[in-house]
């Protein structure tokens, strides 16, 4: 990125988050540029999920700022942040088990947003063909992989500009992981900017442009995927490979 680049779509600066007295995120900053896929890498408990929840307004930060497309969204409520164009896909999926696939999508539906791809259930069924066959099935009676697809599709119904994807490959069969990687690349091609969190370095390398390594709530490393691939020491220090 050169100095004259447009402002990043998402910029988090000096985030500090606490759970009770425990200082979980300290001085955590990152940027996500337009059309990029950036990954937060880190071991269990490093603070990846907490970072995403802080950005999304789901946990309160004690300090720090978050800007979405230049607008300050610090401290806003989750629904305001979502409506500003941020899509959040939680790691534990959190589909509405009693609701059908179509109803889950309906909950996510928001008006189209200029400058962001517009989604309809039909378009999403094109992207996730499995879901098309179970439109009226209660989401609680789907496989883990299908639920993972549904939770992404549900968030896309909000026509986000930025997608926060928390460990999308976790607990999925290898075939489904490949499918997920293809999906992320397709979304990138649509013009979405994506912040990913991962422990799976292989998966992250396949889809990401840049990486941040998080450890104990701090950024320990920042670089392109190529640079990280070349740096065995960093990988061995911070990641379980």
């Amino acid at each position: 990125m050169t100095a004259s680049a447009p402002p990043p779509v998402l910029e988090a600066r000096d985030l500090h988050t606490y759970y009770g007295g425990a200082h979980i995120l300290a001085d955590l900053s990152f940027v996500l540029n337009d059309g990029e896929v950036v990954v937060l890498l880190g071991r269990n408990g490093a603070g990846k999920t907490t970072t995403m929840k802080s950005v999304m307004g789901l946990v309160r930060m004690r300090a720090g700022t978050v800007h979405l497309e230049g607008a300050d969204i610090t401290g806003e409520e989750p629904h305001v942040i979502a409506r500003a164009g941020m899509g959040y896909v939680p790691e534990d999926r959190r589909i509405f088990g009693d609701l059908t696939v179509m109803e889950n999508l309906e909950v996510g539906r928001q008006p189209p947003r200029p400058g962001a791809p517009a989604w309809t259930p039909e378009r999403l069924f094109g992207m996730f063909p499995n879901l098309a066959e179970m439109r009226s099935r209660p989401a609680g009676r789907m496989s883990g992989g299908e639920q993972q697809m549904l939770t992404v599709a549900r968030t896309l119904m909000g026509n986000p500009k930025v997608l926060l994807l928390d460990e999308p490959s976790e607990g999925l069969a290898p075939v489904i992981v490949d499918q997920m990687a293809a999906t992320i690349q397709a979304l990138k091609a649509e013009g979405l900017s994506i912040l990913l969190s991962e422990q799976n370095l292989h998966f992250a390398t396949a889809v990401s442009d840049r990486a941040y390594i998080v450890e104990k709530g701090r950024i320990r490393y920042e670089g392109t995927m190529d640079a990280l691939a070349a740096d065995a020491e960093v990988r061995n220090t911070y990641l379980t490979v």
Partner: protein
Amino acid sequence: MGDFVVTLLTGLSSAAALFLVASGLSIIFGVTRIVNFAHGSFYMLGAYIGVTTVQSIGGGAVGFWVAILLAAVLVGLIGVAMEVLLLRRIYRAPELFQLIATFGVILVIQDVTLWIWGSEDLVGPRAPGFTGAVTILGQRLPEYDLVLIAVSPLVLAGLWLLFNRTRWGTLVRAATLDRQMVSALGVNQRWLFTGVLFLGSALAGLGGAIQLPKGGADLLMDFNIIAAAFVVVVVGGMGSIGGAFLAAILIGLLQTFGIQIFPNSTLILMFLVMAVVLIFRPWGLLGRPEIPGHGVVEAPEAPLRPAGRSLRIGGALAMAFLLLLPVAHLIAPSLVGDFSLVLTIEILIFVLFAVALHFIMGPGGMVSFGHAAFFGGGAYGAALLVKFADAPMEIAFWAAPAGAALLAILFGWFCVRLTGVYFAMLTLAFAQIAWSIVFQWGEVTGGDDGILGTWPSDWASSRVAYYYLTVGFTVAGILAMRRILFAPFGYTLRAGRDSPLRAAAIGIDLKRHQWIAFTISGAFAGLAGALFVYSKGSVFPTSMEIARSFDALLMVLLGGVHSLTGPIVGATALTWLNDLFSELSYWRFLLGATIIALVLLLPDGLAGLGDSWAGRRLGLASPGSESGAGPGSGSGAGDREAPA
């Protein structure tokens, strides 16, 4: 045969109001997780407002129904006002805190209703076109009963369409499952909450208005329906409308048939059914277990700390005050009247009761809605011994807590299998069973007339002597409970509250610990009950009623559930306020408004305020220190009880 059919139909018709109130309660709980205690008040308002709207619109063939619907809408708007003005400001506070707010609303609505419509029961208007009776197999059934029978399925169908065929309904169902996720998808929860409060309250209002031709309107409707509505919601499954429908019919039939078979035990029957259902289906007929963890992220609770210096000084001052009050009374009776001793005795009794409830609620995380069972159990235990065995006070005083403990062993065995709101509801059910037995078994308990003549032994019969006796028992009781909480048993209890799974993983038999804690708490509540009987010289079923349980809950929550000083401060403040206001007309309004104001101003409870205020003022408390001591902590026991 005709008898049977007509009874069946009467039962179905009486299910209508129950279903309307319960479905509203269930819908509100589903989304907001608030158990709206004021729901019975909305039902009562529906009836009163219905009388007025029918009068002003005129009860013609169309006008009557328009007026009924208008009453429902108006009550819905009152529900919205409660949400916007009150609940919305405290959604971030701990869940239970919202309960207190709805208590306040109950009291305010009672007095506002009294003020607007007067104390006379109102006769309901009759429904045009349905004033006669039909004859079925030789038996007569009011035509209006047929209307009521049709109402429940119609409303059920309407709700089904609303929840399954509209976007709003889909959002509400989603929010019932995981409301945080719904907001992360861009939905403003506030509008959902407001909408749900409107719908739920309007249903209760409709229930009140539509039963007018049968039941009229009176000031007891709120508490009369709320217990039954809780039963229906719990039996059906919290948050399940279909369940509420089934359960309303079940309870409606049970009540009408029950009256014929066991005329004196209808109330017991209802709660017995609830207890049985909860034992076999802990989440109700059509309910589902709570999914933990998807709520708001809450800070882990700070550990209980041994008494800080400011608290020990405060405790010593309180103790000195208690010990010296009678001296002041003897020296200057005109300044410190007999009444101040009476009031202090009452305060102390409720302090003991509240601390006993807090014992399971705070450290144990078990919220009991029915703790009056043990207070009243102790009170009646003592009084019955006096009545039938002519037992002296010295014996009754030991028998009362023992009897209450036995009751708690029995109830606790069932209750500790459940958690959260289901636990609370089951305790309420058992308390109501106990209350109904006392109330309906007149030959033994005297029923409504109570038991008289429970006076202290000679040595304790003077006011001052009984006062010191009360001080002694209360302080000793509090210190004993405090001792237990700072012993390994107490740590285990708290570990179980904070993480049941981990506690189980390290081999703790949590249920057993909870059962024992429940029993200990029941015993001390029973002791408070015994003190109460002998201070009054009599006992009535009111010592066991729901309102008494709610009072105790209010004391703990208002004082602050997170510290041991909370229930002490709460009980003192509330008993004193009660007394202060009880002289005035519309004291309920004042009390309710005070409670609401406190909730809005002090989301940490009174003790939280006292702590931070005194701490800052005196510079004594270390920053962030939690309170955690009884009034007797100044007597020297405090320092040795620091957790190892």
